């Protein structure tokens, strides 16, 4: 059974419709890439999954999104818990202007996940190790998170997300602000993380989608044009538009 199941999702920003009857099945412990040209609605769909669209004024969502069998758009669904359960990493690295330690400790702290300092130290260390950052920062955990390089900042943001122990991690173009070496590190990390988490990643880079994902979903003009196993989408797409996009004819 799929981890995330979206049925006929429509999103409106005021009078403008951004998504049209999107259906999607996302399976657990895999990486699903959402690709498509700018403004096609892939980020909008991603933000539906942890209800970050709630913060956008005039945004309206219809349709059903079941995550682990729970309707996340239900009026009585607590978004605070939902977002702890479904973490998110953004396009631009956005560490808090606090120490590296406090950045990672923030989530467990606000959810009261730990009882004492030792447990907190443990979570911080574990999260930084999982994000592949621990060896680089273990001697300067009290330095500000903003003093790290772009790639390190993004891995810090991933560590921060992992620290609250989510099941799903949403990534919104996590490498678009990074250089190729930092990108390679993040991609490596994503492939490792999929063993423990379900990952949905929005990306502009076709190669990245091909490298890291098992499932790919092509969006165009707010509609899902084609979805399926990554290998199939990139080698033998059924739709002409998909074919044109992945071969770089537009986008």
């Amino acid at each position, binding site marked *: 059974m799929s981890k995330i199941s979206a049925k006929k999702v429509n999103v409106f920003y005021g009078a403008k419709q951004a998504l049209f009857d999107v259906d999607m099945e996302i399976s657990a412990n895999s990486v699903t890439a959402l690709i498509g040209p700018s403004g096609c609605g892939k980020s909008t769909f991603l933000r539906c999954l*942890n209800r*970050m669209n709630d*913060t956008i*004024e005039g945004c309206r969502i219809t349709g059903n999104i079941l995550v682990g069998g729970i309707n996340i758009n239900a009026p009585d669904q607590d978004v*605070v*818990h*939902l*977002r*702890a*359960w479904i*973490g*998110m990493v*953004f396009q*631009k690295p*956005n*560490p*808090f*202007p606090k120490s590296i330690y406090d950045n990672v400790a*923030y*989530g467990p702290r*606000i*959810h009261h996940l730990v009882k004492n300092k030792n447990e907190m130290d443990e979570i911080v260390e574990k999260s930084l190790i999982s994000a592949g950052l621990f060896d680089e920062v273990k001697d300067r955990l009290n330095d500000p998170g*903003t003093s790290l390089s772009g790639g390190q900042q993004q891995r810090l*943001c991933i560590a*921060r*997300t992992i620290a*609250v122990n989510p099941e799903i991690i949403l990534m919104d173009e996590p490498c678009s602000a990074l250089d190729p070496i930092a990108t390679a590190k993040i991609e490596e990390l994503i492939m490792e993380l999929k063993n423990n988490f379900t990952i949905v990643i929005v990306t502009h880079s076709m190669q990245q989608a091909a490298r890291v994902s098992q499932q790919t979903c092509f969006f165009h003009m707010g509609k899902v044009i084609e979805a399926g196993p990554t290998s199939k989408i990139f080698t033998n797409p059924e739709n002409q538009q998909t074919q044109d996009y992945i071969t770089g004819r537009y986008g």
Partner: protein
Amino acid sequence: MTIKASDPQWHKSRLRAEKRFRLYGKCALSLAVLMLVLLVGSLIARGYQGFVQTQMSLPIQFDPAALGLSKDVDVSSLSPSAYTPLVKASLRMVFPEVTDPMQTRELYALVSSNAGVTLKSYLDHHPEMLSKTADVWIPASSNADLYFKDRISENTPEADRNLTDQQIAWLKRFKERDIERIVFDQTLFNHGDSRSPENAGFLGAMVGSAFTLAICLALVFPLGVMTAVYLEEFGRPGKWVDIIEVNINNLAAVPSIVFGLLGLAVYINLLGFPRSSPLVGGMTLAMMILPVIIITTRVALASIPGSIRDAALALGATPLQVVWHHTLPLSMPGIMTGTILGMARAIGETAPLLLIGMVAFVADIPTSVTSSATVMPVQIYLWASSPEAGFSEKTAAGILVLLMLLLTMNALAITLRKRFEVRW
């Protein structure tokens, strides 16, 4: 080879326009600097005399009988006015030729009416001088003070100055014998207001200002910051928020005297708070400063990048946690700067306080927020409108003190902003 990228004639003319524009800018700047130098220069030239005072040395005979001491009356229980006869006796001793009662009164007018206070404190510190004679430095009266500071000239016709020819002749004798000196005037910083310029101090007004500002800050800071946080972080943008925003912006532009009328009507007439008190003054100024604080706080909050809010929300922070843990602490430098500048505006405000009675003559140093008081700018206004010549230098001195305070507050605001500014 020369590079030819544009019409040479046109290029020359646009370079000239550039030069002209820079020249205009320099002219405007130097004019502004000149104005500033003129303002500060004239204030200092006039104001420094307000910080000093003339004293005259008089041989005082501490005669127990003249002081009215007896078995029942102890030295420490004497009031300052009991020492006045000693001053008069001393003056008669120095100028024995003066016998005419009219002339004697003119002679007495050379020393400050406050001389008794000086003598009392002298005798309290030197009890062994009782029944003996000592030379004591006694403050000159305001007019004598002005003569020694060359503010009254004997070349002016007698009818046009506050000292008679005879008085000037006496003062000259002090000068010749070198028993007058000009010293730093503590009166300004340890006395309240007085009807006589040489006794008038700024302390009452300073304490009044401090109380007023404390009330104003205590009201306006929580109220303004809360309002701004709600409007910026929680209020759903829409018609209501727009209406409120327009009204707050308008409120910031309302002439301050209107707030004075409102304070008079609401706080004094309706709620019955004590007139002339820093309590009412602070509450009135709070109404005036509130929009300023709300606007600056909103600007500070809006300058926090949305990515920080997103990061916290995506971790599952509640909106209140986002404000409390991130946006509010991060915007604190901006809020503090706005608050200090708002307070600087409040400390210099006069008009609304005139209407709620803080313009009353108050000689005592206020002891609480409900006692009658005045504030620094109002004190300056009061002195400036006093007829006695001695008050003009007090006015300038008061302005200097107020300006120094304002400069300090602005410097503090800049320092805070520079030090705690977070770079993204």
